[in-house]
């Protein structure tokens, strides 16, 4: 256990505990199809010691009355006690809900998934895309890990077959991919002792005073943001963070090439 004071003293010397630069991610790996027998799409993302898995399940449901020709997505992060002593069993904590909603927003607001193409029969049947995300080892930076693993699982996903009566036949998969047209990528920047760092370890997260997650689309537009932490951020700081986040999301995007 390392105290906030210790982390701050290291950061003040322009260093990080593990020797990384402030703007440096730990090694990232993305693996596809980790639950291909069960899920319609699945993936595993590792960022250093942090490991998350995600799976996509497709179900047929009725559309909302105001959007009769649109399907929808549901993003759910469960902070498993298997992955850290910081998490407990029971109903979703506020941290899990925030992670779910920020991850959801990046996909939804960028229109990365064409909801109209998820319509099977207007007013009656549409595809509901469930994305369930689980940390296996929580070692910091779950925000960015959840975003990456969601994109990877969606890219991996295919529609299951439909029977003649428009029922889902989960035992047969089609070759049709989901209508994913964009890759909205998140980068969360953390403010520790008046410096800005990316991809924090758990200790660095606990020492941080503020964070700002920003999701960038392929063409450099911003499609979701979330500020967290107890300290305020000035306009200048936000602008510094945006520049850093934009540069880092461009790097992260290469993992999907």
């Amino acid at each position, binding site marked *: *256990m*390392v105290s906030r004071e210790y982390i701050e*003293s290291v950061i003040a*010397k322009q*260093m990080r*505990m*593990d020797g990384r630069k402030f703007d440096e991610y730990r090694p990232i790996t993305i693996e596809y199809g980790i639950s291909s027998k069960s899920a319609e799409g699945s993936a595993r993302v590792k960022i250093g010691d942090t490991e998350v898995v995600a799976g996509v399940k497709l179900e047929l449901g009725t559309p909302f009355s105001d959007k009769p020709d649109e399907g929808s997505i549901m993003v759910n992060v469960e902070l498993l006690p298997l992955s850290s002593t910081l998490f407990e069993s029971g109903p979703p904590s506020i941290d899990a809900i925030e992670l779910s909603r920020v991850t959801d927003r990046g996909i939804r607001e960028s229109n990365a998934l064409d909801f109209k193409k998820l319509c099977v029969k207007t007013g009656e049947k549409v595809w509901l895309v469930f994305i369930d995300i689980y940390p296996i080892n929580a070692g910091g930076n779950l925000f960015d890990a959840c975003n990456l693993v969601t994109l990877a699982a969606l890219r991996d996903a295919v529609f299951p077959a439909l029977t003649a009566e428009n029922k889902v036949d989960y035992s047969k998969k089609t070759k049709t991919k989901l209508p994913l047209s964009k890759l909205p990528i998140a980068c969360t920047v953390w403010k520790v002792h008046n410096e800005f760092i990316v991809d924090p370890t758990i200790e660095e997260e606990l020492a941080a005073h503020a964070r700002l997650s920003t999701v960038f689309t392929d063409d450099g537009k911003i499609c979701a943001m979330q500020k967290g932490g107890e300290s305020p951020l000035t306009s200048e700081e936000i602008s510094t963070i945006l520049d850093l986040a934009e540069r880092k999301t461009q790097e992260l995007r290469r993992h999907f090439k």
Partner: protein
Amino acid sequence: MSKLIVEERQVVIPGDVLAEGMDFLPGKGAFREGDNIISSRLGISNISGRILNVNPLAGRYVPRRDDVVIGYIKDMSYSSWFVDVGYAYEASLSMKDATADFIERGSSLSDYFAIGEIILTRISNVTKEGNIDLTMKAPGLRKLHSGKIIEITASKIPRVVGKQGSMISLIKDKTGCSIFAGQNGRIWIKGASPEAEKLATDAIQLINDKAHTSGLTEKVGVFLEKHTLEMQK
């Protein structure tokens, strides 16, 4: 006919038969079942005459009397502090064992040790129900200021310290850090720079990972030599 099945310093797992026959006796981490001596844990075999032990490779700290440990102050009552020493339950440090000073009734205990502070302390008593008493009344016991704490498997602390303190002296010399190794697996490190502290941390991590191998002092020496040169560059 008795027969030894394992060799000295071999990795064994729960349920492994260590020896057959009545000439051998089960020691730590082993038990007898019929004619056989069997390992009850993941560890390294140790043959001490007729006694077969299994030294743990993993596992949580179990407090013993007179252990010197590193603890975090978690809470306090009117007359004592509650201290996390890395066991399932918090230990308690009573006022009379904490200081030779006279503490007036009703005065604030956080003037002495505040919540979150770190102490080097000694276990004065352990009951079989898991109640642990601590004392600060022995040479060297004190509050630890700044620096960082790392945690390794408690059973590997003797290897970090080395014979007559040889290993820990080596690390202190090469990194210039002050280091205290608590028997509960917590190690306090304070050096001139974060790099020096990282080097000491990495060296200790190396010992933790390779504790069951031979020639460890040599390996750590080579490791430190290589990296101190890099640091000076």
